[in-house]
């Protein structure tokens, strides 16, 4: 159903579960390395592959990181928490259960304010943040390789099994209306920013360090009872989260408007087709037969530890944004543009390396974003650093090169030709600032357009344009157009 019509008929309620992989050295319950991209099944031991007789032990750093996340989300920290076994049979965990927290999560009852692209701010209530372990990675072979449908068998790598996870669960979020998809994406972006600022996760979505399950339900306006929800699993980019929520709103509205009912189920997002498809029916919590983990004793963080972690929390992302906007004197629109394009960190670093804020903003949100988009790449995959951009901005600022050459240099940096100063030197791109050379080119151009000086003397300054163009062309673009203009006017008034 058309999105606007769906919103006219129904109220949207969303709920988000975000899994954050912690960047501890070791796993949650054993001393195996927590690292991405190692040879399969080389970071495994009897504990994380569930061999009989093995005994888990809780990673102290993972608990401290979890407390930091809880505090950053404004949560209470449980004075007494414990682990539970979540029982299910699936080969992604060899133990036949996931060690998780059920009725006593480490953190609960928080709130976070989320700003969406329109500038509106929504308060999202956090229900809980609990500790658990990640599962292994399955590769489905045969049939349509990579997808489970039609697979003949699966291969399991347990390197990721047991990696510490914090699952952050929101309460139902009401009232975002048409902005629910943007709110969902902005929320996950904020969680990412927070865990990155805390230094507790690498927070790279493309590596699955931050993953989102999006719950969506709709109900007719004015109805009190919540609609049946669907949970779309493992949506792995901010853009996909937005699209998933929007798609589910429209899909559910279409079904309800035609007298159908929504099935409570997990769904999968297909980025290529832009749709979700049904997964398994959602199990009841009872079916997991949670019970307290007998091999692990309770976690009872002391008040001193909690206060010590609270005191070491970095500046809140929202406060940091406010501070930076002030320092850079950006308008709301300019600043929002930076935040929404995801370049805040890069911009801050570029400014720290000596670029003027406006110049840094222009490069990142303009040309660099454009080039990344054109290549269909994430900017983090582009081989350009804030130092490069600061160098480039300084070269332009000092008049050594002009904007057009700057864009050419940027392209060369992305192609791996080195840093901007080197490229400018190697290719002789520095603008001609020798007035003598410029004057020679101006006189040559004036010889072909003899009436220009007269027009300028009559006050028609725009007449200089065609001469500037000719000079720029003669100089292969390596002239400071402003200086050329000054010299032409000087010549006219001489």
């Amino acid at each position: 159903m058309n999105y606007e019509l769906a919103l006219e008929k129904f109220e949207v309620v969303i709920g988000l579960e975000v899994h954050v992989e912690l960047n501890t050295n070791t796993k949650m319950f054993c001393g195996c390395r927590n690292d991405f991209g190692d040879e399969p099944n080389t970071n495994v031991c009897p504990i994380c592959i569930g061999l009989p007789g093995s005994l888990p032990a809780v990673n102290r750093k993972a608990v401290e990181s979890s407390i930091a996340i809880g505090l950053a989300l404004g949560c209470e920290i449980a004075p007494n928490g414990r682990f539970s076994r979540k029982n299910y049979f699936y080969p992604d965990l060899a133990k036949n259960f996931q060690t998780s927290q059920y009725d006593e999560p480490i953190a609960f009852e928080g709130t976070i304010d989320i700003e969406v692209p329109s500038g509106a701010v929504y308060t999202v209530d956090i229900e809980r943040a609990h500790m658990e372990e990640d599962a292994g990675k399955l590769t489905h072979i045969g049939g349509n390789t990579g997808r489970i449908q039609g697979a003949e068998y699966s291969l399991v790598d347990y390197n990721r099994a047991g990696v510490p996870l914090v699952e952050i669960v929101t309460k139902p979020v009401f009232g975002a209306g048409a902005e629910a998809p943007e709110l969902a994406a902005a929320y996950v972006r904020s969680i990412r920013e927070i865990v990155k600022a805390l230094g507790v996760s690498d927070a790279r979505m493309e590596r699955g360090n931050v993953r989102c399950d999006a719950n969506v339900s709709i109900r007719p306006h004015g109805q009190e009872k919540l609609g049946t929800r669907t949970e779309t699993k493992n949506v792995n980019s901010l853009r996909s989260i937005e699209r998933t929520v929007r798609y589910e709103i429209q899909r559910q509205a279409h079904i309800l408007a035609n007298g159908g009912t929504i099935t409570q189920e997990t769904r999968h997002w297909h980025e290529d087709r832009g749709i979700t498809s049904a997964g398994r029916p959602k199990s009841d919590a009872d079916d997991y037969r949670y019970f307290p983990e007998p091999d692990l004793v309770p976690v009872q963080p002391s008040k001193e530890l909690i206060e010590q972690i609270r005191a070491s929390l970095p500046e809140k992302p929202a406060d940091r944004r406010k501070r930076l906007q002030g320092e850079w004197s950006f308008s709301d629109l300019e600043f929002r543009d930076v935040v929404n394009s995801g370049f805040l960190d890069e911009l801050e670093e570029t400014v720290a390396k000596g670029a003027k804020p406006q110049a840094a903003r222009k490069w990142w949100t303009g040309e660099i974003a454009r080039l990344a988009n054109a290549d269909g790449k994430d900017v983090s995959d582009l081989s350009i650093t804030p130092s490069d951009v600061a160098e480039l901005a300084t070269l332009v600022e000092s008049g050594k090169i002009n904007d057009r050459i700057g864009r050419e240099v940027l392209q060369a940096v992305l192609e791996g030709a080195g840093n901007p100063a080197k490229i400018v030197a190697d290719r002789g791109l520095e603008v001609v600032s020798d007035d003598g050379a410029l004057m020679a080119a101006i006189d040559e151009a004036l010889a072909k357009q003899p009436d220009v000086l007269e027009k300028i003397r009559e006050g028609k300054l725009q007449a200089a344009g065609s001469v500037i163009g000719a000079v720029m062309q003669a100089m292969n673009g390596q002239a400071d157009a402003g200086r050329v203009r000054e010299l032409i006017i000087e010549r006219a008034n001489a």
Partner: protein
Amino acid sequence: MSELTPDLVRHLASLARIQVTDAEVDRFAEQLSLIVESVAAVNNAVAGDVPATSHPIPMANVFREDVVEPSLTQEQALSGAPDSDQGRFRVAAILDEE
């Protein structure tokens, strides 16, 4: 305590991936009901204001420092697997969650 119905026994068996015959379902329903009733006797021994105990020994905060310890080699890890391929455990494809 309510009795364990045959349907509940079948559901539990399916969660535990155990195949049961109709005769076993009836027998287990009877036996499990008896076990649940017996355990429920604990409810009579304590009042409601006693917090549930999951760990009988008063001990908390047993932590491991975040220091890498040697793992198994890939060969060792796979040595007990019924089947393996490309350094990974090979298992039957199960249509379930991804």
